[in-house]
């Protein structure tokens, strides 16, 4: 139905374009007047008036229709005598009614369900009919309005441009809507989670084992279950594992990235730079699932083999393997940003240093790097935020069990790994286990936001200093 409506509106708008264009041309010739805009703008004007109000209406209607019908149907079912204790049962009955209407329900149909299904069919019909009627009304009203305007020889170009400018503004608002969507969807589930689990138990608990918490319904929890739940969601092992793996990654990425950035900015000839810079940036373009595969199937077993040769027990999902590969993935982030930052240090600082007899490396160590330090730290912080938000490498190469350890040869888990583990496959909605994934997501979101904010501030301050 919606597709038919959209198609009709499109066809109608397009034909209005040609109508408006030729109409204004003929008016201009007939009455021998000067038009206020090119004829095609009158056509655009009609298109916009015909399509935008009706399409916006259709969109809003389609978003709200299912919700409204659902609440009406559940209410009628309740009036018919259907009994449901909570939301889930109500949803179940609604799905049954829908299935009966579509003819895909094969269970027993009692009188309540049959009556409700009839009511459902009635409402669907009513809503569809009123939708079509309203849309036609909107199209007719707005087209009549715009045709009147055209006949008065309005300033069609200005009007069209104002509408289009509004469209541009709305497009740029989508970024804000996305942010709001992220915040609300994370907050919504997190609040539910924290209404069951004390936020301090979450933040300072040292035990993470959500698989213990298979409570179906969070609203009817017994005291014994609650005790069990209380210490199943301790965040400390996750943040410890996350920072630990990120730390190993930075041990790899910072020296290699920084040194290659310095070399490219200060030493490399144009030719070497032109070849090696894109190759290093390949590292940032490789999908992380590829790194994960490499870490899990090649690097992990390789370390295990080496460990065995030295008589060490190395877990095949060691923090070391995941951290090392993650570090390699991050090298280009550190190197290209610090390359940029070092390049923007003014030449006069270097010249001054050379003039008093310093070698190139002394100049870099004593003059260039201190001058570029805020920018370099900013780039490292951005890399850290990449590392803690990275998912696939740790999901595939780091462990699943949360254990507090600082032995890089053992397996640890991370925030992102746990989110994936909890949400992969079928989820039980409204269970604290599922909600805990959103709480973890919220924590991750806030942490990366803070890191990014500080990093961007640092880089910006630094840029301003030398501009």
């Amino acid at each position: 139905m919606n597709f038919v409506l959209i198609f009709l509106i499109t066809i109608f708008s397009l034909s209005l374009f040609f109508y408006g264009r030729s109409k204004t041309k003929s008016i201009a010739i007939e009455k021998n007047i000067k038009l206020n805009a090119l004829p095609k703008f009158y056509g655009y004007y009609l298109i916009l008036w015909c399509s935008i109000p009706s399409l916006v209406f259709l969109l809003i209607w389609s978003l709200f229709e299912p919700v409204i019908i659902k609440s009406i149907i559940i209410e009628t079912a309740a009036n018919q005598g259907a009994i449901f204790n909570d939301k889930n049962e109500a949803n179940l009955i609604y799905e049954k009614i829908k299935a009966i209407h579509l003819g895909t329900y094969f269970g027993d149909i009692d009188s309540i369900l049959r009556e409700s299904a009839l009511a459902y069919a009635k409402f669907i019909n009513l809503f569809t009919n009123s939708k079509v009627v309203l849309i036609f009304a909107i199209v007719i009203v707005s087209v009549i309005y715009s045709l009147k305007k055209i006949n008065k020889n309005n300033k069609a170009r200005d009007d069209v441009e104002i509408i289009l400018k509004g469209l541009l503004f709305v497009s740029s608002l989508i970024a804000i809507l996305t942010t709001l969507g992220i915040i609300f969807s994370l907050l919504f589930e997190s609040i539910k989670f924290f209404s069951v689990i004390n936020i301090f138990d979450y933040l300072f608990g040292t035990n993470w084992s959500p698989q213990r918490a298979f409570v179906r319904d969070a609203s009817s929890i017994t005291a014994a279950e609650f005790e069990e739940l209380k210490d199943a969601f301790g965040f400390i092992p996750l943040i410890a594992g996350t920072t630990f793996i990120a730390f190993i990654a930075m041990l790899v990425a910072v020296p290699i990235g920084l040194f290659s950035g310095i070399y490219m900015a200060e030493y490399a000839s144009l030719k070497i730079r032109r070849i090696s810079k894109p190759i290093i940036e390949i590292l940032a373009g490789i999908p992380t699932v590829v790194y994960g595969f490499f870490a899990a199937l090649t690097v992990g077993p390789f370390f295990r083999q080496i460990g065995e040769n030295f008589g060490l027990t190395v877990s095949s999902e060691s923090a070391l393997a995941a951290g090392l590969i993650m570090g390699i993935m991050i090298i280009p982030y550190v190197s290209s940003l610090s390359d940029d930052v070092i390049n923007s240090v003014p030449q006069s600082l270097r010249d001054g240093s050379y003039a008093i007899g310093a070698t190139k490396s002394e100049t870099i160590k004593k003059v260039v790097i201190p001058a570029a330090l805020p920018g370099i730290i900013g780039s490292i912080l951005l890399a850290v935020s990449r590392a803690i938000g990275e998912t696939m490498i740790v999901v595939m190469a780091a462990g699943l069990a949360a254990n507090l350890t600082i032995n890089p040869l053992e397996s640890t888990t991370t925030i992102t790994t746990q989110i994936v583990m909890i949400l992969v496959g079928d989820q039980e909605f409204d269970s604290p286990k599922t909600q805990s994934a959103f709480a973890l997501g919220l924590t991750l979101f806030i942490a990366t936001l803070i890191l990014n904010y500080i990093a961007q501030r640092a880089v910006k301050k630094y840029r301003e200093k030398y501009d």
Partner: protein
Amino acid sequence: MTKEQRLKKRHNAEKRFRFYGLASIFFALLFVLILVHNIFSKGSSAFMKTAINVEVFYDKDLLELEPGASEEEILEADFFDITIESLLKVYPAKNMDEEDALIELFTTDAEIEIKKAFLNNKNLIGKKINLEITASDDIDQLHKGNYPRDLPEDRRRISNFQLEIYDVLVENKTITKNFNNYFFKNGDSRDPEIAGIGGALVGSFYSILICLLLAFPVAVLASIYLEEFAPKNKITDFIEININNLAAVPSIVYGLLALQILLATIQLPRSTPLVAGITLALMTLPRIIIPCRASLKAVPPSIREGALAVGASKFQSVFHHVVPLALPGTLSGTIIGLAQALGETAPLILIGMVAFVVDIPSTPIDPSSSLPVQVYLWSESAERGFVEKTSATIMMLLSFLIVMNFLAVYLRQKFEKRWN
């Protein structure tokens, strides 16, 4: 320490420092080489499959088919008996155990292959034909040399008897390597020898198409607004900060967003390219807006002023002059953004694309997989045959990314104007 010694020390320090820089670049390059070599050496064998030449006799009595049977009758007919008969003729087996071991050498789809050959040529009833039946995963790996045959028998998946048959087959040259069309044509499967990336390719294609259709227009319009029309005020600043932050939000957070808004609230169908495309579009949007704005900014003000001077409106100056000049940069930024979206895995896992889907999706609202998710799924499988399949999928993924990135570079270098 004399002056000369001190100078020598300083110069040595200089050399060392330079060496560290060179060594780290070298290390990064070396890693790229190791990674690519590792993937290619593991994956290239997946493009071939092992097949065993079998003489099939389409026995009229066993098939219970008359000559000239209709398509439906053939599809209904039971080909199991003639499959077993034909496979057992490959090597003399003495008892039931040996017969089972012999049949295990072939793919579980042998019956379907024999049926397909019959569907292609319906005159085969009562005739004999030589068919190349796909070998089982274990034989496939053995024939490609990926399977160690010197292990003791109880630690091998292939028994001594099966090895014996294999050696005879190799000697008779009835075992061959063909192009693996299943790898490109088939959907996922539990059996590595018939598993393919067909479904994942289609799923990825739909997801990226939807992502392009949603993200590109919105990103271009938003960057035009921010760069050309937006007044300098608090709202504009807020939008800008927002976009920069969104570009740095971990991708898994977008997966949570999609789960809550698209699946739980709007109730779009799970595991579908439609949801994947919308999620990827939201994620890619800020990553496209940033290069789009940069390329709009690079167009010198003189272009705008020239247009305004001959009487164009602000809109005409932007859409007739600035946007076409910024288009190459915009397009290459979009392609790079899409390349990132193509390799993105974590949000797709959360929206349920990890489901085991055998069928190849025909529309964007059918459940499907995607290339990176297929890599993840297969890398978790224990069968040896999936290692080469995973590596080959990565090879496909990487080659798409390389093509897209080259296209982006080409567009920029060929069409972009330099203004100084």
